[in-house]
């Protein structure tokens, strides 16, 4: 156990200055230090994707990410993924289309899907399949998740040209 080091990180748009143990994972930081328990722990070894968060707009597995390695990063968790006035179209589509049952994998899937849509605004079913293939779901058989993501597309606001914070710009 080393002494704590300073970490500056933006979480869901809010700047944080924290003293962090060098061995602390981003997952523990989010869940235990910041109380953001929407990010789930399913495996601790980067095999399930339940802890997926967006770091500078790209999906990262928080369970194997050391918090200190993300000094200066912008992190988006499920708590920041919904616009304040409601929920993201992907979330609504997952619920309405049966793309979730127990819901434990869902926060990770929502963020993986957002990252995918930021990268490929009009994905094919194959793109979605690949985009969520790091996220395990034991309940659904995946087809409804893929269908839900695709059905959310018409309800997403197009990304304005030139925006540089893709993970947080669409709603």
């Amino acid at each position, binding site marked *: *156990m080393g002494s704590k080091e300073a970490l500056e990180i933006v979480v869901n748009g809010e700047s944080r200055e924290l003293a962090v143990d060098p061995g602390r994972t981003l997952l523990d930081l989010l*869940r235990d230090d910041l*109380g*953001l*328990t*929407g*990010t*789930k*722990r*399913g*495996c*601790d*070894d980067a*095999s*399930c994707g*339940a802890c997926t968060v967006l770091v500078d707009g790209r999906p990262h597995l928080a369970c194997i990410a050391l918090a200190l390695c993300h000094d200066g990063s912008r992190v988006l*968790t*499920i*708590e920041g*993924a*919904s616009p304040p006035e409601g*929920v993201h179209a992907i*979330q*609504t*589509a*997952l*619920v*309405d*289309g*049966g793309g*979730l*049952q*127990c*819901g*434990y*994998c*869902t*926060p990770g899937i*929502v963020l993986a899907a957002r990252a995918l849509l930021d990268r490929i605004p009009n994905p094919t079913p194959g793109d979605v*399949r*690949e985009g*969520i*293939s*790091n*996220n*395990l*779901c*034991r*309940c*659904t*058989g*995946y*087809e*409804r*998740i*893929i269908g839900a993501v695709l*059905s959310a597309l018409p309800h997403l606001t197009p990304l304005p040209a030139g925006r540089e914070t893709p993970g947080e710009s669409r709603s």
Partner: protein
Amino acid sequence: MKNPAEPSDRSAASTGGRSGAHTPLMDGLERATGRKLYVEDLRLPGMIHARFLRSPHPHAQVLSIDASAALDVPGVRAIITGKDTPRRYGVLPVGMDETALAVDKVRYVGQEVAAVAASSEEAAERALEMIRVEYSLLPAWLSAASAMGARSDWIHESKARNLDREYHHSFGDPGRGFAEADVIVEDSFFHPRVTHAAMEPHGTVARHEGGDRWTLWTSTQTPRHVQRGIAQALGVSEAGIRVIPCAVGGGFGGKSETFPQDVAAAILSRSTGCPVRMRLTREEVFGLHRGRPENHIHMRLGMLADGKITAVECETIQDGGAFSGYGAATILYSGALLAAIYDISNMKFDGYRVLTNKPACGPMRGHGTIAARHAFESLLDRAAAELGVDPAEVRRRNLLRPGTRTVNDLRVTSYGFPECMERVLEASGWREKRGRLPPGRGIGIAGSHYVSGASNSILRGDFPHSTVLLVADRDGSVTLFSGAAEIGQGCDTALALIAADTLGLPADAIRVVSGDTGVTPLDLGSYSSRVTFMTGNAVLEASRSLGRAILEHASRHLGLPPDDLELRDGTARSKSRADVSMPFIEALRLGVEAEGALVAKGTYRPPPEARGGNFPGAGVGPGVSYSYSAQVVEVSVDLETGEVRVEKVWAAHDCGKAINPLAVRGQVEGSVWMGLAQALAEEVRFSPGGQILNAGLLEYRVPTAADAPPIEVFIVESLDPEGPRGAKEAGEGSVAAVIPALTNAIYDAAGVWITELPVTPARVLAALEEKAIREQRAALERVAAAT
């Protein structure tokens, strides 16, 4: 019967609100936004953390445990060992062979030996390293065969030759059945141990409330079984134990009993005065297991030339791991549910559940039926092949009829299996495809079924298996108190739909409080696919009773007899006079003003005639009803590499009546998917020393989205005469069929029978090679005979 179409416009459907309408799960948005609290998300003031020290040996005497150095580790608050957990518990009354921490000996690698509570998990883990345990190794029994051959050093002294349970059943006259048969087929089958791998690892937070009272937040499907197990393990009365299941992140059977972390956290909370959290790592969840046992089956099937089954005989050996758990039920289901899907007059079953030095097995989706169904449906196809009859036709010739009592005393009240078959045969293009696809491509069919709620309770005694309360109050709220646990299967939503329909309200007008043993009446919980049928019937009774009470108050106000009134569209209205009505809330308020909050109770008790026969082991197998599934699988088999690719699955499920078609479809798709994963990939493997080799989700090969084949689901509604609105279960009956449908399709594609799971390329290649050798030998023999 009709097949509710899936609405294409999901936004319009999202309002749902009536039985039979596509209804999103009522807590879906809470789950999708990360707001729903699972056990691991709880943060109680003063909460501390605990970790287990686990056995490195599969079988050993524990000679001594020295925890003195560990107690000095900063942050450590308490350490307990087997001396602190002497009381035995177990989910079945015939089991009761577990203690939370090993007492005197360890029985598998990973068994809990000591538990440390500390200010942090890290501190607890540092302390674990300081605990010194002295073991004296015993011979380890790591296979069913070696365990049954053991002459001494049995895993439990009372279980000679490590035989946990054995059952020998014979119904009708199997000898005569086989004597009459025109064709007899038989084979041996192997199914490895597989596990649930629910996405949420198990966890517990226990808080000692003083005296003999505790509150436990734990990830469980069966809060009442945990309450009872904790009470047994602590030697206190059940009434002092309150179990709250929180949100459960998937169960599949793996969260259906009391676990060591529940007991240890409770004891540590008492010793420290703090709430104690224990959360398992993924590796520990694999070690906890309670999933399917390894099955060794030998089965024989006799058939007349016209395809009629004359007899079936099955020997099953299950390698059940170190404790009894649900094992008696697992082995009995394997035998009993040979019946109740086809008409079979003669049946023999010999079942052995064997103890081994591995993590204990238990119930997993399709409990006990998966391996036996694979064997049976494979032999059906094999007999069909020998007779030159279409596999679908062979199944048609052995159908049951609703209103049947099977030879082993199972009662079939509704039977949508024939329609399930016809649906998938038609949709898949069976007639055009079977036997007509090019080499390497094939199509196969199989059926399966499952109890829609076990008729006999684990708890002995004649009492309702479900009791619910409905409370309607002045603010217009209607709250349903149900002990069934919402584990993502959608039971809160289904129960709300049943109540809402009866009261003429939209589903979201019903608030559901579920699972908490401190505030809900007795319900046996979310296992054996019982909730829709049993708790649903209790809700139906309670909501009818509440509705009658409200109408009586409305009747006084409206001046019409209660019989002329009904609850519809949020009003109490006259059936005879369209202009006479009053809002529901006003009728409710009249009632509350007269007598306070309106409270209605509903119960469900399985009828005596559904409880099965009178022979040892007759208690397992009887269901209050049965669901049915027929599935067609189309595959491609690469004849060079042995690789199998599932092109499509057509699955029809008879759920009686779809209370919520969206949830039914989700359950059936999930079942098919889980069955396919078992068929193609999954297996818990052990080192020669009894350690799990693949205790991780990647290593275990839980399939990903990249592996998902299209699954087309058909809902068949046979309207069970006793189910609520005709409903039966949807979550388990479709797991089994997909496995034999797949292997039967492989036969159609490549001419080989796969009898061992998982269906790896190596197994397919070996079968192809064996077939080639057999054919060459036959050719040589023909040449030799001719010369």
